[in-house]
């Protein structure tokens, strides 16, 4: 035994028992209208093991659900039957899970076993007394001049129908821009209605916007979504402000696309100016940007002859989108500072290593030459 002490011996240090599991459907939704409700859901199970699969039910509605099987050996199907009595009276969303998982073998002694459990949802919506609406809105980013189609999802969760006149208010960062009105209609109890309305963005400026959907039915139901209107532009978000004098110096520029499309060939031409006189210029790396993406591009220049002090940098970013070219320019202040002590030590360390390696090689060569010479003498 090791003198230091063998204090733990983990016999099997492995993760095994890899497992895949699939269940369909992943979710079922039912509306309860006060009458006895009976629904049967057929489930399919996809599994890559011959081990038994166990099925159980949990959640608020568990007592109202019966399973055709609670263990699957060779079968890959089972069903769950929901029986909700007429006197069930919990309004709102009531949820149960049909839980499908691999039966864990109690005799397995893997260090770490992995297993998968799928919980398929069963939702039952019981109407609230009176009128009750749920509202959601979706929108997407576009470029200037392209239409945006807003999708409204209106669900009546009350036991009374509601007369609705949905509207969508459009806000820019400075305030309300316009309101879109949808046709008035009646939505029945427990009905779900999907509506769409198109916004023409002609005349809109590029930027960040918000759409607020509202339905006033005595109570105000609201939902909102953010969206962006883009144009072929790149914003310069940040850049290297402090640079060290001496050697090859990196200059980083952080850019962000303002376009809802791919931008190709984006790079920056950077000119370093000292009292308006050009003292250096260089190009950064070239990159492409996915819609609204933020990226760093970097260029290098020789700052050997620079002295400490304030300079300025003219940054011109060039790019292409849909075969059209554009550019963004700005002039920024930068500062050249003395090389840090850490950098000096870095060079000293690198120099020392090179010296050590070179001297070692030279020593080996000398030893070899010495042996060769003296070896020949002995043979004489």
């Amino acid at each position, binding site marked *: 035994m090791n003198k230091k002490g063998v204090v733990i011996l983990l016999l099997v240090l492995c993760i095994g028992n890899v497992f895949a*599991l699939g269940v369909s459907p992943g979710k079922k939704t039912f509306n309860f209208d006060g009458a006895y409700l009976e629904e049967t859901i057929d489930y399919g199970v996809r599994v890559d093991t011959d081990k038994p699969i166990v099925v159980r039910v949990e959640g608020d509605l568990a007592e109202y659900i019966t399973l055709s099987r609670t263990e699957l050996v060779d079968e890959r199907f089972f069903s769950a039957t929901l029986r909700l009595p007429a006197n069930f009276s919990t309004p709102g969303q009531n949820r149960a899970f049909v839980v499908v998982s691999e039966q864990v073998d109690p005799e397995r002694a893997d260090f770490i076993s992995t297993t*998968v459990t799928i*919980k398929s949802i069963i939702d039952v919506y019981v109407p609230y007394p009176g009128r009750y609406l749920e509202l959601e809105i979706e929108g997407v980013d576009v470029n200037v001049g392209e239409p945006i189609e807003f999708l409204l999802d209106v669900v009546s969760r009350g036991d009374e129908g509601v007369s609705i006149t949905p509207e969508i208010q459009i806000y820019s960062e400075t305030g309300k821009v316009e309101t879109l009105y949808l046709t008035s209609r009646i939505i029945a109890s427990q009905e779900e209605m999907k509506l769409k309305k198109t916004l023409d963005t002609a005349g809109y400026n590029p930027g960040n916007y918000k759409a607020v959907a509202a339905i006033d039915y005595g109570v105000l139901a609201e939902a909102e979504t953010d969206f962006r209107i883009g144009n072929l532009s790149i914003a310069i978000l940040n850049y290297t402000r402090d640079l060290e004098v001496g050697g090859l110096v990196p200059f980083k520029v952080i850019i962000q696309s303002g376009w809802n499309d791919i931008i190709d060939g984006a790079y920056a031409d950077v000119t370093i100016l000292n009292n308006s006189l050009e003292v250096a210029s260089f190009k950064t790396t070239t990159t492409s940007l996915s819609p609204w993406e933020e990226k760093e591009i970097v260029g290098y220049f020789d700052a050997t002859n620079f002295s400490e002090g304030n300079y300025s940098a003219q940054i011109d970013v060039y790019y292409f989108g849909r075969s059209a070219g554009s550019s963004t320019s700005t002039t920024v202040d930068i500062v050249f500072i003395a090389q840090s002590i850490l950098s000096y030590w870095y060079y000293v360390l690198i120099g020392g290593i090179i010296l050590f390696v070179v001297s070692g090689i030279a020593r080996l060569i000398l030893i070899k030459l010495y042996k060769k010479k003296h070896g020949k003498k002995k043979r004489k």
Partner: protein
Amino acid sequence: MDEQGPMMPGDGTTKVLMAIAVIAVVVAAGNLFFNFLTLQSTGYANVDTGQADVQIESAINIRFNVNSLDWGAGFVNGSINAVLDTQTSPYFNENWSFNLADNPTTNSLAGGLEIENYGNAVVDLYLNSSEDVNDFICSADATCTAASPGFEWQSEEIEDSCDATLAATTWTTVTSDLTGDGLLMCDAFDNQVGSNELEVDLRLTVPISAPSGARTTIITATAIEST
């Protein structure tokens, strides 16, 4: 000179067969033309419509893609805790010695657990361990549990596979939730190919006082369709 060649046996039969073939081709061409006219006159091919009602149900499919993480058998060789992980080669520190006869192929450890959502729905993904750190590493031994054992995980999304909040992005003590589903690792685990995988690294800190013997725990990934 005779223009015709010598008569060959069976020439009469050949002519008969050729005549039949020519007639068959003519009849077939006529039939084709007639069918064409019929279809044109009825307009049947142009106006035929059908309706197919198909409802595609959601399918939740989850799997662990890594089939082995093997550190082999080993022991703590000093007075300081040994650390084993799935993140940094060689995946154990100098305080861990493994049995040379059971020298593991540690390459398999790189990346840790890999979980894939290959269904057609975005899911909430929970991870849970059947044993907590004290039970798993120390078997509830008091001396060992006082010596800072560790059983941790760290998650990493692949190509923005978690569309919402990814938990445990730094080393986090493994959750052992005996009544629930454990840690909500990602509340919108994507199912799009190329961005539907999560990596979960593991790190074990084994004190010198950890009792000898094999350890067992079960890591369960639970998936629920995102709502």
